[in-house]
């Protein structure tokens, strides 16, 4: 009879009998996805709170994308649970001495803030869609549904006077300001989940939440740049093909001008947070080596030996150093930024991997090792959800959701005053 974790765990030397890699790929995906949420939100707040005008176009995009990601963020943890349907217990009987229990509160308040901010941002749009439909006689079924949806979304407020919109604007600013610490908390607590496990020598460090927040912002910005660029390219392509006289689409040249500006500006922030994140990670590594407590022997053999490729080649060299060079060499082009952001995302993913899987690469005995073999071809439900395809599904879902949500919250070409 197979026990949970046995399929993908290989034990070497002396490992306790009950030890397996219990936290597998979905727990790598969990902080990765949560980090993207928090990062995207912080990026949008840079515009709303600090008034960095150059980020205007990106800000709205980032907020909607953050909302799409938000729904997916709990998914990896639910897929990881042995009893997914009991996940609701976290809301029902929260035990707040556990970092995971904070999830219910933090996730809920964060969701409320993002949703409210979106409501203020798109309220005018909702009213503008709902009102003409209300006037219209003999609506089709589709129009009825649309009408009901948008009426609900207005929450019964149809006032779009200058005064009302001014208040909206102020509310957005306040929410974005509250949102920054909450977003940091959302991800800081994900870091706390790991950092507070005193039984795990690799995880236990007070730096963990800060490292997680920094790398979260890095990954969030990188993903926003990536998605933004890809959508802009698609729009350019469409603009070229249609060249419609109605000018619903702007001309390709105009789009390109907007794009380069936005991306150069965002890339600067990406660089800033990247340097911060890498410094913290290196500080942690140096500190461990210098203090060299009891666990250092086994940690050193993992960090500089068994996981050397994962940590120093994949994470630091390809995931950090390479994009740094790509972004710092003068004359930044869109294509170069695009490649750099893909490497950045990969680097952050590897960082999560090296924390979660690397933290279980050695035994609690400090005298043995565990090797993780991620299930690729699913043979049953468990090897699907905690395997390659489960992880890929989680990664793809926010893009699909974004596509759906963007139909309600149009991201581009919205006439508005904010």
């Amino acid at each position: 009879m197979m026990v949970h974790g046995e399929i993908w765990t290989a034990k070497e030397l002396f490992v306790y009998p009950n030890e397996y890699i219990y936290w597998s790929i979905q727990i790598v995906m969990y902080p990765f996805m949560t980090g993207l949420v928090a990062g995207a939100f912080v990026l949008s707040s840079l515009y709303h709170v600090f008034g960095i005008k150059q980020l205007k176009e990106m800000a709205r995009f980032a907020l909607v994308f953050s909302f799409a990601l938000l729904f997916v963020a709990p998914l990896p943890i639910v897929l990881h649970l042995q009893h997914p349907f009991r996940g609701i217990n976290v809301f029902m009987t929260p035990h707040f001495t556990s970092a995971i229990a904070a999830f219910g509160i933090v996730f809920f308040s964060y969701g409320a803030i993002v949703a409210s901010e979106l409501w203020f941002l798109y309220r005018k749009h909702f009213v503008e869609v709902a009102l003409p439909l209300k006037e219209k006689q003999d609506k089709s079924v589709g129009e009825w549904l649309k009408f009901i949806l948008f009426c609900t979304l207005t929450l019964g407020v149809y006032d779009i006077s200058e005064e009302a919109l001014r208040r909206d604007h102020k509310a957005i600013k306040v929410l974005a300001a509250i949102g920054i610490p909450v977003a940091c908390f959302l991800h800081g607590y994900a870091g706390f989940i790991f950092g507070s496990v005193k039984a795990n020598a690799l995880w236990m460090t007070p730096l963990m939440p800060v490292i997680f927040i920094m790398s979260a912002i890095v990954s969030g910005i990188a993903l926003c740049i990536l998605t933004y660029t890809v959508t802009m390219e698609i729009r350019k392509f469409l603009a070229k093909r249609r060249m419609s006289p109605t000018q619903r689409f702007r001309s390709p040249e105009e789009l390109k001008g907007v794009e380069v500006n936005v991306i150069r500006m965002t890339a600067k922030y990406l660089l800033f947070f990247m340097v911060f994140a890498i410094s913290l990670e290196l500080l942690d590594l140096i500190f461990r080596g210098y203090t060299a407590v009891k666990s250092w022997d086994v940690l050193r053999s993992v960090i500089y030996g068994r996981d050397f490729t994962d940590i120093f080649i994949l994470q630091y060299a390809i995931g950090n150093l390479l994009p740094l060079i790509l972004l710092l060499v003068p004359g930044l082009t869109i294509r170069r930024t695009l490649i750099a952001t893909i490497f950045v995302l990969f680097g952050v993913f590897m960082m999560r991997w090296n924390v979660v899987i690397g933290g279980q690469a050695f035994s609690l005995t400090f005298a043995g090792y565990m090797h993780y073999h991620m299930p690729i071809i699913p043979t049953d439900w468990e090897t699907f959800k905690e395997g390659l395809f489960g992880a890929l599904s989680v990664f793809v879902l926010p893009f699909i959701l974004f596509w759906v949500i963007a139909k309600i919250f149009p991201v581009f070409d919205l006439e508005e005053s904010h």
Partner: protein
Amino acid sequence: MKSHVYRPLWVTLGLIAIILIARFFYVPKDFGIGERGYMYGWHRKGDVEFWKNFKVKYRGSAYCKDCHSENYAKLMQSPHAIIPCEDCHSPAIDHPENPPKLQIQKGRELCLRCHYPLPYPTSGRANIPSIDPDKHNPGIECVSCHNPHNPLEGLK
């Protein structure tokens, strides 16, 4: 407070209210803080009863001695007296009703648990008489020559 700015707040409070009401119906009534406080005692009280009522399977040698008095008496005279009956005979549970017959372990592996030579200094294992299973009548069950209830009585 009539301002439309507060609408999202009301929606949020409404959702919280729904969660709290759902909680009222979903959470078992005996869920609460036990004597160990919120950190260590936050639980459903009925679960303690579940573990208390778990089925006992190992009944101890005293449970065997009345019906199997002859074997019991013999065992008590031998160096194997320290070994509880159920170690080799398997747990009695509700024997003789359930199970009517116990699964007795007879293989060489059973005896080798103690009598495989591991002369480790500082361990009690070093003091137990042992045989090398590869040289000592391989393939033959120990009980075909030795009486486990009295290993000193001589070979059969």
